[in-house]
């Protein structure tokens, strides 16, 4: 889960990382009660980079300009997203701009400290000058100093920048974050540091133990005027595509394989739904059946849909629940538009499931390649 800039800065502030005085603007009229002295920066709060270039960041000198600028920004989509909130912030004179981040190195299975002396808007330059330090044992502040030195910092900045990194790491660890980034971290001519922009990505699997982060998501009014982007395959969200075959599978690998085989055989998927792996701790027959039924309903909303291909395999409960869910679905659909089903079910309770589906006259397959061939022929 990505946090918006103003939410990230709230966390920075709580952790003692210096941020500028700022105010959340939900509506252009809010600027009339602004408590920060002008000049002020107005920033579009969207989950994406490149706001500056897109015109989502504007400097204003007085209330009239500010209200006008806010109206413009509220109506400016950035990579398809409209802001629900703006951030009004004091201006800051930076002498230099650094980049700092703490991320998870998935491959090394260790946290990684990142830093560059070339922070700011030019991502290419930032990445080109990027230094990294792997936190291979339990964190201690010397890892942060190690990065500061690698970045080429000297004198008092070694201590002050590593102190900021230390706090970023604490935040990272305490809140189970995937990413905490300050870019730019401004250095004033007096050597003072200020986090001018920040990005935090919380780990979705850990949100359950951080109610404060979970509620942040709810606080944002959902005015984002765009279609939801497809989620990770591990999720059970229905992903819509351009074709006419609806695909329902269990497990990411199996779902991807089924899609691959359909494409390869000349079919065109309309959508796919991954029921998820079998390894969810709280999987229950009821939850599973519910998920299948809701997935099928969503799938039916596509007007292009010509056939549904169900491919599930596994142990225990799965086959029976799948068969039951399909049966229930077909009963509910009775009378309305009828989309043919091709069902491939393999697993322990196959016989029982086969019995159930046979009474519904559904073609039933053991072999995946055959099921796919059948689905494609029905979709033509």
């Amino acid at each position, binding site marked *: 889960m990505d946090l918006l800039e103003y939410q990230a800065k709230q966390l920075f502030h709580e952790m003692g990382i210096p941020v500028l005085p700022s105010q959340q603007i939900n509506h252009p009229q809010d600027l009339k009660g602004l408590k920060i002295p002008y000049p002020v920066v107005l920033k579009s709060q969207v989950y994406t980079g490149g706001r500056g270039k897109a015109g989502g960041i504007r400097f204003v000198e007085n209330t009239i300009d500010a209200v006008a600028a806010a109206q413009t920004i509220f109506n400016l989509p950035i990579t398809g997203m409209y802001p629900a909130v703006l951030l009004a912030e004091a201006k800051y004179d930076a002498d230099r701009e650094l980049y700092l981040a703490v991320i998870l190195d998935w491959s090394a*299975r260790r946290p990684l400290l990142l830093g560059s002396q070339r922070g700011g808007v030019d991502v290419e330059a930032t990445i080109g000058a990027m230094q990294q330090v792997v936190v291979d044992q339990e964190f201690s502040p010397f890892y942060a100093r190690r990065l500061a030195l690698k970045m080429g910092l000297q004198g008092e900045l070694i201590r002050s920048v590593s102190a900021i990194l230390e706090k970023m790491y604490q935040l990272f660890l305490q809140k189970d974050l995937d*990413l905490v980034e300050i870019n730019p971290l401004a250095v004033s001519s007096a050597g003072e540091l200020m986090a001018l922009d920040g990005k935090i990505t919380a780990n979705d699997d850990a949100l359950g133990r951080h109610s404060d982060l979970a509620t942040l998501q709810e606080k944002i009014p959902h005015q984002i005027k765009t279609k939801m982007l497809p989620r990770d395959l591990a999720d059970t969200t229905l992903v819509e595509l351009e074709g006419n075959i609806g695909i329902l599978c269990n497990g990411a690998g199996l779902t*991807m394989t089924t899609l691959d085989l359909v494409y390869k055989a000349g079919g065109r998927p309309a959508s796919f739904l991954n029921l998820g792996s079998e*390894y969810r*701790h709280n999987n229950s027959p009821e939850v599973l059946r519910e998920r299948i039924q809701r997935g099928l309903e969503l799938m039916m909303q596509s007007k292009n849909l010509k056939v549904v291909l169900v491919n599930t395999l596994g142990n225990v409960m799965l086959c029976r629940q799948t068969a039951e869910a399909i049966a229930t679905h077909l009963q509910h659909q009775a009378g309305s538009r009828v989309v043919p089903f091709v069902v491939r079910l393999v697993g322990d309770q196959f016989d029982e499931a086969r019995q159930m589906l046979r009474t519904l006259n559904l073609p039933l397959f053991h072999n995946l390649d055959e099921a796919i061939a059948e689905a494609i022929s029905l979709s033509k």
Partner: protein
Amino acid sequence: MVQGITEPLGSIYAPLMQVYGGQILAGISPGHGGQQLEGIPVFDLVEQALLSVGVVDTSVIFVPPYQVLDAALEAIAAGIRQLVLVTEGVPPMDMMHLCRVAEASETLVVGPNCPGIIVPGQILLGTHPAEFYTPGTVGLVSRCGTLTYEVARELSQAGFGQSIALGIGSDRIIGSTFQQWLQILDEDEQTEAIVLVGKIGSDSEEVAARYIIEAIDKPVVAYIAGRTLPQSQYTGHAGAVVSSQIAGLGDEIGTAESKIAALKQAKVPIAERPSQLPDLLKQVLKSSTKTSAKS
């Protein structure tokens, strides 16, 4: 041993594992000590179980995601050096912690979010549906869940039984790598050829391909899922991109193309579909017999 035996998954799979022939000596579930589950005695604490049942090689863990780290540390503290974490959704921070402790204590951790290990005909440590597996000489190592079953089923139907089959886990941070298991299978006397099942995302297959070039003598064939998926649907957040870029891996890491190219460089034949794997196996086993005959 099964930790979380009274949890939903534990109570389903522990009896199946027991029936398959693996000796499930004890189940653990705090507060349920003294009960029995289909003949398996339940204890409150791992060390208490060990006092009663003696040495335990492996613990299969089904506890809820936020309790996995604790259960694993409990097992390690009690001297168990092989863990299978089935549960999906363990926070990465917990896995990082666990990996550090596992490395220091030389504990082999499989998972999380995985079907575990099966030695067909002998022992089941996880959730593999027994009916898809037959004993044989093909080692199967996979980064997927149900797709592993699919591949095993294809192999079994084509007469290729399995020496060991396992899923190392679908999560981004998992306890053991393709490399570790390729090495184990390479050294395993029962194993004549290895099937590697991967999917898009992460650099696991790329790293495995480099390792195959360096260290693996037995023939390897592979299948990669997700070749037709549009890229935008699986790339991670900016941090991951930065991470792979600065690691010198480039932007393309994690795509099907990158994985297939890496595996081709390691001379690993790649199946177009799971049902093609038996044919590839026949070819590599034939040529490997020829090679051995020559040498």
